[in-house]
């Protein structure tokens, strides 16, 4: 059942021209940024060669690319999550799901995995793009893997938050702005707080930084899993309350 709902979500996404447009524009931005970083690296490569232990191509090209993608996704994911429940409610298609033999958990997980799968197709282009460099140089596979895992976990947490906010309202646009506001708020709390402030701990982007540096830290992984699980559970609760309070 979860797979059925996830597949329906994907089918609907790919049936809309706007999805393809967003995919194309994002690929273009990623590619542009990748080429710009690569060009900068090639320019300073002679100077780098003179340093004793020079930074490699992976850390100078790939890491910033992933970091940019993480920021872009923060603004982009709410555009996709806004539809998930708010629009179903507005178009009254939610009644079909609510009157079908499914539990609320099925509905929420189906929608979550559907969108995650879609965004994975977007994210996968990043390591692929960088992997083309392996033709001419040696790449740091560990750093690349750490970044990829981190980005997937980060996206999952964004989707869970967006899904929850989408379940609170009937207006997709309010769901989008709401999710963006919360995510931007968490990000600003991170970059604005002093170095030893506890505020950093709340920000998904802060926890991504270790992954970005190629460090797989169980604290960060646990944070993402908890963050995602909490918001998914809240969404299930919200759907249940929907039946109680109407």
């Amino acid at each position: 059942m979860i797979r059925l709902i996830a597949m329906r979500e994907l089918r609907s996404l790919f049936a809309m021209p706007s999805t393809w447009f967003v995919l194309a524009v994002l690929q273009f931005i990623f590619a542009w940024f990748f080429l710009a970083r690569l060009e900068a690296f090639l320019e300073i490569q002679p100077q780098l060669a003179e340093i004793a232990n020079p930074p490699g191509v992976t850390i100078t090209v790939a890491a910033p690319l992933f970091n940019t993608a993480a920021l872009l996704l923060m603004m982009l994911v709410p555009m996709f999550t806004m539809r998930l429940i708010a629009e179903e409610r507005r178009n009254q298609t939610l009644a079909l799901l609510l009157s079908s033999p499914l539990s609320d958990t099925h509905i929420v997980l189906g929608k979550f995995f559907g969108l995650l799968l879609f965004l994975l197709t977007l994210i996968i282009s990043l390591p692929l793009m960088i992997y083309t460099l392996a033709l001419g140089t040696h790449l740091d596979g560990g750093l690349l893997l750490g970044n990829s895992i981190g980005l997937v976990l980060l996206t999952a947490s964004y989707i869970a938050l967006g899904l929850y906010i989408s379940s609170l309202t009937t207006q997709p646009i309010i769901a989008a702005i709401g999710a963006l506001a919360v995510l931007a708020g968490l990000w600003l709390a991170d970059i604005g707080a002093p170095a030893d402030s506890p505020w950093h701990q709340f920000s998904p982007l802060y926890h991504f930084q270790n992954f970005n540096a190629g460090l797989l830290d169980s604290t960060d992984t646990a944070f993402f899993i908890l963050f995602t699980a909490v918001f998914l559970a809240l969404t299930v609760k919200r759907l249940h309350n929907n039946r109680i309070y109407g």
Partner: protein
Amino acid sequence: MAIQLLIRVYILGYIQGCPQLPPPLTLSNATPQITLSAQNLTRSFGNQRVIHDLTLQLKRGEVLGLLGPNGAGKSTTLQMLTGCLLPGSGKIEICGINLRKNPMLAKAQIGYLPEAPPLYRELNVDDYLIFAARLRGIKDVTEPLKLVKQRCGLESVSKKIISMLSKGYQQRVGIAQAIIHRPAVIVLDEPTVGLDPSQIRDIRKLIRELGDTSSVILSTHLLNEVESVCDRVQIMQHGKLIYSDSSLRMQDYGKVSGFLISLRNPPALSELESIDGVTSVEQMTQTQFRILHAPEEHTGSLLLSLAAQNGWQLEQLSPLHATLEDVFVKITGENS
């Protein structure tokens, strides 16, 4: 012989779609099976109670019309029956399965068309119907899909995107998703709203057919819909059931005795009023009158003979019928 009977019972059970098979045939099984029963449902939104102590039952092969003015609580009731809303108190059973305790099993027996058909407009008709069937746990969808498209007249549009379809076709797709899994209980919330007369006729015919194999409950505020498709009527007002009977007997409820009479050479109004048994006369046009008389009087034959004797030149004499509309107004008026 016994084996044959058993097989027939199994096939019947399959066709009718209830999970439990009826016990081996005895005479008592010939009585209609109850597919939906709701007892003492109540529901409040905030402090406002919108449904008061509602009890209803539906037998297999029965079409029940839930009638009522706007805001009477029809849609809320149907939402509760399909599990979209939880009742404040009370019990709902679908084919004997408690909806609250065992929602997955019970909901597999329900097909629901809400007020606005729940369509994913970006999908094509086939994909959408397949999704709807799989949601209800149907594994092999080819046969049910073919059947339901044929029943709802959707063969010609099966590859079209739903948002491109006309309102009538969208409504048909909405009905198709509600019946594709052959549910025991079909719940339709105002199924003919916004359709043109020929589409309304088609859909009513379809509902009548559905009523042969499943139980159908439909809400409407159109009285002729009840007259033409429903076996039984329940009228709701302010969240209460105020009337419940067969739709034919509902017409008897507000029966009036009287005639519509046209005379080319009419006498004075007072002359008509003085006829035995006549209670009131209303002049509609120059030559037409509406005469009400006391029941059990032979006013009709008296009028005929008087018209012949006095040369009133009778053109038309037709008994007055109570329309469902009159009855409805009468019943809801009595209770408000």
